[in-house]
């Protein structure tokens, strides 16, 4: 493989040239700094989205009760008398979901770790294009600020759910959030997509072209494979969302009828005819489903690395792991309509999507079993990152199995758009990806900041988080199976037909909210640990976790161009842990094979 390092930057004098504050911290073109910028922005957005979720959970647990907490954040306009307004409930849910999916787990997770790790782990001086990379971050930042800003608009933020199905999202008369709030949502998303495309192209090119000598594709760490497949998914699917967003903007602003037909809204008869709301859904989910894996794959990649390192064992079935990621990536493009079984789509088409969707369970199962086998007969070190990685495997399984129910069209009839779905996607996508992200932060914090985070606080954070997370989302399955629809402001309607069911839901809703508050408070331990460690944490050694990948061969102090001298040459795969015959229980990738040693 032609994996010759290209030293295009002319870094003979690495780190010696003076940098101004602006070019170092703000308009930086250094991938490590850009990764940190992504992380900081994501942490901010994550906190916002978490607070939003607590706000609407309070309403669900204690509907109609006045709360100072609500008035504090929402004021008289959206929480008159401390009671959340109906419209704003939907606004909070929408922005919560949007931020979590796009800003925390797409921009934040993939942006942070792809940027930080791709050049370091493939042995490159930087990304293929530092400038585009910088643009990618700033587009992300601008779109994040627009989305955040839309919370403060007079008529409220977008309120049509994170999937913003038209006509609800197309018609300002339909709900107050479909005015300026929705316009901002769409603009923000368009900019976000531009950011994501710039980033993804850069990742792909870097992985293909800038691998150091010896770094063949079959010696790439699984993290890189995951980022690579993620980037390809992004490049192929985000443009489709962009087109959906643009068509929706045209329907809103230019009077076109892509998604609108035969509508009377608030007494006004519209002339739009011939458009199809289903068309929007097809376009949206053509991105939307791959998006789930765009969120998940990087987390799986990070945890592969972390589980192997901390079990002191090679990841089990390296090739099968790559194969299953490729299979998942491919299949994720032909399952989108499983979100549309009961939309009026042709039922035969539904059958086809049942089949393809359930196929995805196979590579997913392979991955889960391979993780578990990696632990088997290991010598497990419970660094905080390891705990979160194990948590990820657990939630990946628990959330994955409920997907089997939802993929079965006949069963989706009764579970579609209920809390069962909310529980499912939170566990499999939300929790897994968040756990993966936390695992990544604890593990690569030394690489990012040259410090180590406090492990005791890490333990407290993990155990509170996993108990809280399961405590929130496990009961939610039961609320859903009881038939509770999602996106309901309260369940008072049940009092008119089934008081028993209402009582059960109220029980569970209170439990859920209490756990949610607990989990949310637990995250402050992390925030404290994170910021405290950046400034006052103990200094990290060069290779704190005794890891094999190349990033741990770079100096702790960041240098421009990553390696002060020559780029390292790679001689082996990254998973030589506890290899028989070796002195240490790890052999970094740049250590040559000894005489007679087999690669693996």
């Amino acid at each position, binding site marked *: 493989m032609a994996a010759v390092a290209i030293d295009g930057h002319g870094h003979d004098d690495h780190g010696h040239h003076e940098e101004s504050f602006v070019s170092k911290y703000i308009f930086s073109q250094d991938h490590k700094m850009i990764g940190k910028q992504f992380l900081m922005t994501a942490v901010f957005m994550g906190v916002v989205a978490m607070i939003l979720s607590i706000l609407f959970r309070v309403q669900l647990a204690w509907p109609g009760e006045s709360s100072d907490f609500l008035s504090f954040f929402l004021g008289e306009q959206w929480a008159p008398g401390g009671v959340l307004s109906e419209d704003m409930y939907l606004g909070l849910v929408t922005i919560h979901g949007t931020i979590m999916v796009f800003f925390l787990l797409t921009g934040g997770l993939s942006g942070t770790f792809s940027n930080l790790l791709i050049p370091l782990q493939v042995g490159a001086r930087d990304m293929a294009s530092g400038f585009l990379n910088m643009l990618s971050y700033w587009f992300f930042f601008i779109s994040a600020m627009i989305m955040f800003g839309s919370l403060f608009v007079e008529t409220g933020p977008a309120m049509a759910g994170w999937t913003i199905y038209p006509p609800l999202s197309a018609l300002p008369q339909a709900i107050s959030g479909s005015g300026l709030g929705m316009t901002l949502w769409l603009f923000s998303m368009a900019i976000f997509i531009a950011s994501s495309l710039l980033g993804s192209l850069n990742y792909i090119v870097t992985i293909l072209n800038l691998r150091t000598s010896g770094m063949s594709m079959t010696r790439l760490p699984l993290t890189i494979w995951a980022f690579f497949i993620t980037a390809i998914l992004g490049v192929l699917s985000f443009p489709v969302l962009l087109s959906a967003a643009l068509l929706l903007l045209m329907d809103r602003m230019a009077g076109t009828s892509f998604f609108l037909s035969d509508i009377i809204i608030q007494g006004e008869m519209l002339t739009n005819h011939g458009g199809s709301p289903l068309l929007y859904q097809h376009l949206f989910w053509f991105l939307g489903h791959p998006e789930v894996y765009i969120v998940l794959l990087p987390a799986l990649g990070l945890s592969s690395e972390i589980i192997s390192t901390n079990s002191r064992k090679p990841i*089990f079935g390296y090739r099968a792991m790559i194969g299953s990621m490729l299979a998942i990536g491919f299949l994720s493009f032909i399952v989108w309509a499983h979100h549309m079984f009961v939309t009026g789509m042709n039922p035969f088409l539904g*059958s086809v999507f049942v089949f393809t969707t359930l196929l995805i369970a*196979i590579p997913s199962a392979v991955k889960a079993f391979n993780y578990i086998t990696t632990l088997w007969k290991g010598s497990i070190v419970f660094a905080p990152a390891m705990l979160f990685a194990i948590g990820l495997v657990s939630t990946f399984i628990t959330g994955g199995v409920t997907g089997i129910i939802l993929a079965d069209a006949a069963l989706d009839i009764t579970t579609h758009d209920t809390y069962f779905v909310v529980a499912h996607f939170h566990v499999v996508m939300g929790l897994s990806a968040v756990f993966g992200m936390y695992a990544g932060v604890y593990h690569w914090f030394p690489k990012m900041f040259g410090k180590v985070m406090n*492990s*005791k606080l890490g333990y407290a954070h993990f155990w509170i988080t996993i108990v809280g997370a399961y405590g929130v989302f496990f009961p939610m399955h039961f609320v859903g199976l009881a038939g509770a*629809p999602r996106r309901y402001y309260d369940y008072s309607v049940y009092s008119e037909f089934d008081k028993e069911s209402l009582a059960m839901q109220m029980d569970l809703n209170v439990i859920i909210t209490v756990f949610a508050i607990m989990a949310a408070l637990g995250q402050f331990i992390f925030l404290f640990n994170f910021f405290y460690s950046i400034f006052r944490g*103990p200094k990290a050694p060069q290779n704190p976790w005794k890891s094999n990948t190349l990033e741990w061969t770079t100096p702790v102090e960041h240098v421009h161009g990553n390696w002060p001298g020559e780029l390292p040459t790679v001689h082996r795969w990254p998973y030589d842990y506890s290899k028989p015959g070796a002195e240490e229980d790890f052999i970094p990738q740049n250590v040559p094979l000894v005489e007679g040693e087999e690669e693996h």
Partner: protein
Amino acid sequence: MVTKLIILLVIVLGVIAAAQLMRVHELSSKLGEQKEHEISNRDNRWNASMMLVFMIVLFGGFIWLMLTYGWVGRGEAASVHGHELDWLLNLNFVIIIAVFFLTNFLLFWFAYKYVKKPGVPAFYYPHNNKLEMVWTVIPAVVLAVIIIFGLKSWNSVTSESGKEAVNIEVFGYQFAWQARYAGADNQLGKFDYKLTQDEKNPLAVMTGESIQLAIDSMEMGLGGIAWLEDKLNDRDIMLTPDERAAYDKDLNAKEKLIRLLYQMRQSHDAKLDKYAADDFFADTLVLCVDQEYEFSFRSKDVIHSAYFPHFRSQMNVVPGMTTRLKFTPDKTTVEMRKSRGVDDFEYVLLCNKICGGSHYKMKMMVKVLEKTEYDVWFKSKSEGVLSAGATMKDPAWDIEPATFDYKFHKTAAEPVEAVEGEELDGDEELVEGQEQEEADPTDGNEQAEGHDAPAV
């Protein structure tokens, strides 16, 4: 009770966590030599035991939830296919719960068991093709079973309904439902959204009369074309540029719509009117037990979803297209109350697609009756709609040729001269009539019902 226990538990956990933190802090300041990145054996063992404890709590919590709430909290199914789906759900649950327990057990058990023990090296085990084959093939086989059973049910649930199925149309709008029964002929009349008149024809049913009604209303009603032209041309009225633009836009739209209505009038086949004539409406969905129903769904504004939790049925309701589903209720409301032991239980139709602020309130009650009761109800309804001057509570298709009233824009308090068939240009009466209604577009909503309020 349970909730209080949980709250207590959480507080206790919180306190323990806080105490732990304090101790941790002290310890770490004492053990200065301990490097932060080197995880001590004590920490390893502690976390390993926690893995086991957590597994037990997780499994215990799950079992408790299952015992307390069951996994079909909607209660027993009330439709024929519902029983089949519940069986399928149970089958799938048995499988996935087994997988859940097995894999989570292995995960947490290994995490507990293989914690680092000083001096014991890890086992170098990079792959084993046979093993990997096993866990590719076994899931594939299990999934094949799931797919086969699933598709079988899916096909039968979504297939066409039988010949005897009774047709009902369910119409959704922000934020309520309306049912339209096909009447004695079991044929629903045609519809077109342009025929919608809030009071006289809320469901936009198409007949020769309703087309004419819509045309008249659009030409001459309050906020109609004549009204708008008048506003725009009257030099005595000062319009702000915004108002003018809004009226212009509205006028454009109405001119476009009226042309379509003319076309509709021209191509309308009067023979079809009889299908509509006996259609009747209901605010409560009344069904007959053991009778198959074919529902078609239509939306006025945004997407809704017709969700019948007890009948295990759901279908989105999409503007611009009709969707359908079928089911056969097999338990009357009374029977269901008895079997649940709850005497105020009702079946319901909920909205299950976000459709606006009051989405959560959008519902229609469903009653399943014995055949004899049902027949009485059905007969009274369909006779009611056919006899003139019926006294039905539901907004009904009550336009009778004899009493047909074209003076729709007149309000009870302020009679206006009929404008039927008159030329519009320079018609003083018309202008007069409209001056009375000057204030309407903004505050006269109640009076203006039945007309398209001008978009201002």
